[in-house]
């Protein structure tokens, strides 16, 4: 119990620090916010282009595909606002050796690096994405059923766990190869494919996006759940997949810590 309180307090302090850092550069704050919304709009363009010529793609109508995009954007705002900043923090810490100070603190290192930085203005992005989702259901002409919404929210949790686990894996790799700028770029590029329903991909790519880099579990399945199209078998698969990834990530992280050599001097 005391431990839980300790970690709650730590989270609060870390968030406060990020917030203080963010408002220090108020101009950036607004600029980044505006940019985030701009990028959200850009995200919609490929979809509009594709659907301007046909009614459905791989069995997905325009509003249905829009649900996937909306869902993808929600996740992306979480990624950009809560995950990528911390990733950059760790990568820099490994390169410069300042991660030493994190490892010297009496708290779980994984927790500390995961909560190191947030970008609070991404909340705009998040809200914009919710708006896209709402618009998509408006076009569909009906709201998601309560049960579907519940499953969708549960899968949102699974998606976050997956995203986070993948990220921990990337960080673990950074302990060995040190320079992971390219790796995080690759990560973000692959993640970008999540804006398309999984049925768009064929063959090997589809398998990879379901099992190795489980984009399907992160965006398509939750969107299907909201649309009331997800079978319970798939929902279960997503849940187990999330837990499996989390366990693997934790294991790899622990191993990676042993390999950390800390930059000289």
């Amino acid at each position: 119990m005391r431990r839980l309180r300790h970690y709650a307090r730590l989270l609060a302090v870390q968030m406060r620090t990020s917030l203080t850092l963010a408002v220090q550069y108020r101009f950036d704050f607004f600029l980044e916010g505006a940019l985030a919304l701009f990028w959200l709009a850009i995200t919609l363009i490929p979809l509009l282009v594709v659907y301007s010529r046909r009614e459905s793609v791989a069995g997905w109508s325009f509003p249905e595909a829009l649900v996937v995009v909306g869902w993808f954007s929600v996740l992306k705002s979480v990624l950009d606002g809560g995950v990528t900043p911390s990733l950059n923090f760790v990568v820099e810490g490994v390169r410069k050796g300042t991660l030493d100070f994190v490892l010297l603190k009496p708290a779980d290192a994984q927790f500390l690096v995961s909560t190191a930085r947030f970008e609070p203005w991404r909340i705009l992005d998040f809200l914009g994405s919710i708006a896209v989702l709402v618009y998509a259901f408006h076009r569909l002409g009906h709201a998601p059923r309560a049960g579907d919404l519940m499953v969708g929210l549960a899968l949102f949790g699974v998606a976050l766990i997956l995203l986070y686990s993948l990220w921990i894996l990337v960080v673990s790799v950074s302990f060995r190869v040190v320079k992971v700028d390219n790796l995080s770029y690759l990560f973000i590029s692959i993640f970008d494919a999540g804006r398309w329903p999984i049925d768009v991909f064929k063959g090997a790519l589809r398998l990879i996006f379901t099992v190795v880099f489980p984009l399907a579990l992160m965006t398509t399945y939750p969107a299907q759940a909201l649309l009331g199209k997800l079978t319970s078998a798939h929902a279960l698969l997503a849940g187990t997949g999330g837990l499996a990834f989390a366990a693997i990530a934790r294991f790899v992280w622990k191993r990676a810590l042993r390999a950390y050599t800390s930059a000289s001097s």
Partner: protein
Amino acid sequence: MIRARKLCKTYRVHRRPPGLLEALRSVVRRRYEEVRALCDVSFDIAPGERVGFLGPNGAGKTTALKILSGLLYPTSGSVTVGDFVPQDRRTEFLHMITLVMGQKQQLLWDLPPAETFAMNRALFDLPRDEADATQKELVDLLEIGPLIGKPTRQLSLGERMKCELVAALLHRPRVLFLDEPTIGLDVSMQARVRDFIRRYNESTGATVLLTSHYMEDVAALCPRVIVIDKGHLVYDGDLRTLARRIRPEKRITMHFSSLPAPGELDRLGNCVARSELQATLAVPAAQVTEAVRAALGRLPISDISVEDPPLEEIMQEFLGGQPANGGVRSA
């Protein structure tokens, strides 16, 4: 308090010759090279001791401190600090130690040091009033009251170092690992930091392990030194004993009111520095009194002083004449 047995650390580094072609080749086939940073280093340090780590660049001092603080795993050998194995990174252990690195900083660059202090208070789960009292005490001792509200990036090197010390000591650690804590500081600031470390040690009984390239620091702070060269422990004991053994001589520096007669100086001892109206002689310790008396009698002296040879020079001689894997010499 600290116990190291046959400590070895080998870094595996990816070697990449310069040039684009070589760089491309190394993507396909990586070549590794082993760097032996520490080799069979053993020592014991009692609670409350102040010990200096000495050695040339790349000797393995920082590596040793990182192993002692649990950041690195030794390749072989064992370490305990208190009752703990550092690499387990147990909470009690981390509460007990601190590591200050002159080359790296934990202070948040864009925020005032006070923010980092608040962060550490939460990290170490310190009761608020206790942490406030410690912080006030440290801040007063180092005289940095007005600074802790200014963004770190606006502080000078010395000011930042003092704030680093506060951040590192807020949880009142009982073992201090200090890696070049005075690097880049001016002489008076060095003396202040030194003083502070000594006072902390004396008032709390904490164990201090320090590395520095400034011999003054080590001479003033550490009754005991451990000398490491190329990863090997080559001396463990009293600094002055080492100095006397390497250079069992004193330096007599004389200022003249007029040019001394030629030849007179050489009869007194070995002349190590000479300018028109000044000379420094190296004289065996036992013959100093005699030499001074003779000098005063025969030379036009306006000022005279007797000193130990500079420690820098002694270390240079000690390490310069050292075989790569010489045996341990102890006091």
